[in-house]
């Protein structure tokens, strides 16, 4: 019996080794077998309008993390594109919530099961480019003859998409958080819309106290301790002239500015008592939607959810709300962009596909005034100057595009900065937090993460 156990173990060992080799074989063959599968003929990229663009219909898979109220607009855009290019290009859309989305890309792109074009948040583009999960898009632009000019886009966003001097994405939009305010409540107390932090706090106190005296529960500014507190803190950091990371990509938020920023956020809860304690994700939204909050800090992407609630509201920018020195930086607002990227493919990509991909990207950019209705701000200067966009009632409330700041660029941005998010949450939960202890802990975790990422 012992012999047979030993034999079977040996057998299993052999199987193991075989499997490893097989894996290697599979991967190397998929990356080397190439042109036999392509169907293009290179000459098909003509702009003959009504005749066929391609020899045969091109299908493109497109992934995005847009599932909320803005999702239906994305569906509508894809459908519009498919109708316009019927019989020639079909875009097949798959959408996943943001939490799973990047895990999916990480896992399925190397497997050769990733999409042909995807939406990625701008602050992750450097990291994905560095890990070779997405490829430069310039080749696509050249092949397709679709014109993409950096000068047509918000320059801050467009520049952030270069990694090692190559362009990896085309921005679709820029989105920020702003302050939604309940018009009826402000009017009830005859108050002006605030333009700086003092006014924000004072008006919030007036309404909160006034309503409490009337026996109503209305809060000045309920703040979720979790999402979107990372947006709020980052904006506060910019407004206090702090940095997320330094030029080397190491954490830089553990600074006097970082502490001031943290206090600027948490004082709203612990000092000014404008928010109930322990507010969870989207509970702040719920307060606002049900008329129990005067102010609400929320992303532009939730605009339609707030419209749907029927509250009479307006939007004001976050500028000067976490610091009002009157310096330029105190007007800055943290922004992110939904960007088109091309994941690495294990098969060779035909020119027809490249062209179709760029036509799709171009189409969505050109129609981004529809996307804007979902609460997003078009990255394209052309789309923003269109009358359709200019006529949208709320968008200008989120602030001047020139004040929008995208994240600092580093392939290790997420490792170097994200550890601070959970510490912001802790500080918002506990009045007696110690800012430097929290930021020290975040910094040392960030340093370890960066070191590990650089070494790997």
């Amino acid at each position: 019996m012992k012999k047979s156990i030993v034999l079977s173990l040996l057998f299993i060992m052999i199987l193991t080794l075989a499997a490893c080799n097989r894996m290697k074989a599979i991967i190397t063959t998929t990356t080397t077998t190439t042109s036999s599968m392509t169907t293009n003929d290179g000459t098909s990229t003509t702009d003959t309008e009504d005749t066929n663009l391609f020899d045969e219909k091109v299908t493109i898979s497109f992934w995005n993390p847009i599932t909320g109220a803005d999702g239906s607009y994305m569906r509508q855009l894809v459908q519009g594109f498919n109708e316009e290019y019927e019989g020639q290009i079909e875009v097949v859309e798959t959408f996943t919530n943001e939490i799973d989305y990047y895990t999916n890309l990480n896992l399925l792109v190397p497997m050769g099961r990733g999409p042909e074009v995807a939406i990625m948040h701008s602050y992750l583009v450097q990291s994905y480019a560095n890990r070779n999960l997405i490829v430069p898009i310039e080749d696509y632009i050249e092949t397709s003859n679709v014109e993409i000019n950096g000068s047509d886009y918000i320059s801050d966003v467009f520049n952030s998409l270069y990694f090692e001097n190559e362009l990896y994405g085309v921005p679709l939009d820029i989105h920020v958080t702003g302050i939604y305010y309940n018009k009826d409540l402000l009017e009830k107390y005859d108050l002006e819309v605030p333009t700086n932090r003092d006014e924000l706090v004072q008006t919030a106190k007036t309404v909160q106290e006034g309503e409490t005296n009337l026996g109503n529960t209305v809060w000045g500014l309920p703040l979720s301790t979790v999402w979107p507190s990372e947006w709020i803190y980052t904006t506060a950091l910019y407004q206090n002239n702090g940095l997320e990371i330094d030029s080397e990509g190491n954490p830089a938020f553990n600074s006097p500015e970082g502490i001031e920023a943290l206090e600027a956020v948490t004082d709203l809860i612990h000092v000014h008592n404008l928010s109930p304690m322990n507010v969870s994700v989207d509970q702040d939204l719920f307060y606002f939607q049900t008329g129990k909050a005067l102010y609400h800090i929320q992303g532009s992407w939730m605009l339609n959810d707030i419209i749907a609630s029927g509250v009479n509201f307006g939007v004001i920018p976050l500028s000067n709300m976490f610091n009002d020195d009157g310096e330029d930086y105190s007007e800055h607002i943290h922004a992110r962009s939904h960007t088109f990227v091309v994941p690495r493919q294990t098969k060779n990509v035909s020119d027809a596909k490249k062209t179709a991909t760029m036509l799709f990207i171009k189409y969505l950019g050109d129609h981004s005034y529809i996307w804007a209705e979902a609460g997003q701000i078009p990255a394209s200067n052309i789309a923003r100057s269109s009358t359709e966009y200019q006529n949208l009632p709320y968008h200008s409330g989120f602030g001047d595009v020139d004040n929008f700041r995208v994240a600092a660029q580093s392939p290790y941005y997420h490792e170097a900065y994200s550890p601070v998010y959970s510490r912001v949450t802790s500080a918002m939960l506990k009045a007696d937090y110690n800012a430097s202890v929290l930021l020290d802990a975040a910094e040392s975790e960030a340093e370890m993460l960066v070191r590990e990422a650089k070494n790997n």
Partner: protein
Amino acid sequence: MQASIKILKKIGKYLQPLFFLSPYLTLFAIFFIFPFIYGILISFFNWDLFMPENTEFVKFGNYIKILFDNESIFYEYFWSGLKNTLLFVVISVPLLVIIPLFFSLLFDLEPPGYRIFRIILFMPTVFSISAVILIWKWQFYNNGGFLNSVLVKMGFEEVPFLLEQPWAWISILVVTIWWTMGINMVILGAGLKNIHKTLYEAASIDGASYLQTLRHIIIPALAPQMLIVVITTIIASFNIYGQPDLLTNGGPEFSTTVLMMRIRQLAIGINARPGIATAMSLCLGIIMITVSLIQAKVIKRIGDD
């Protein structure tokens, strides 16, 4: 002739077990033993799921990193995760045995309607973890959650159930007991049924109190069921994942981020490190086996007494 029949019979003797066993053993070998050995292999590599050319042999590097290198983030992940997991095991296993035992003893008295009660208490075990969490999360919420609304109505302060310790653990514990207790309850109940009632009567004639009967007659007689219940509960508690993942998301301040959450994240998450993940799971496995074996010994001794 005689000899060949003998040989055939001998072969038959092995062929039949082989027939009965081979489908199962094949599946077991492919999906349990093979990945296990494969896993051990992976734990000695800086493994890259997709680019074998990036995979390098690091000997005990992964183990050294997670066990001893206090400069490494993985050391931090492993020890804090393990601490949290162990804490959950220590507090959950006794409750997940005692509470079901308590209920099964009540059922054993067969009070009126006990069948219906048993149906109700067993019911949550058939729900999926996500449904359980969906139902419970709102109970624990602040500012409008059920429990806190009740507390406020009764004039108490709100309790940050999911946001502060020890409440976060208590919440996870409550959900776990509510969800999984039923199975242990039924298994123990089956054991109680097998104990002859005459034993109780004899004991009470001898003047033994209920607690004495429990200690000296019921518990030892339940040893076989206890063995199964304790071991499966220990394993389940070590494997805890869904409750903290969905209920507290590992918070507050990572205090409910159990080791399984770290392992899953390192197995396939962003910046996956399969080598580290398997090294961690092997360490966890060794601990689980050790704890289970000790428990088994202890229970055996109680049963033998």
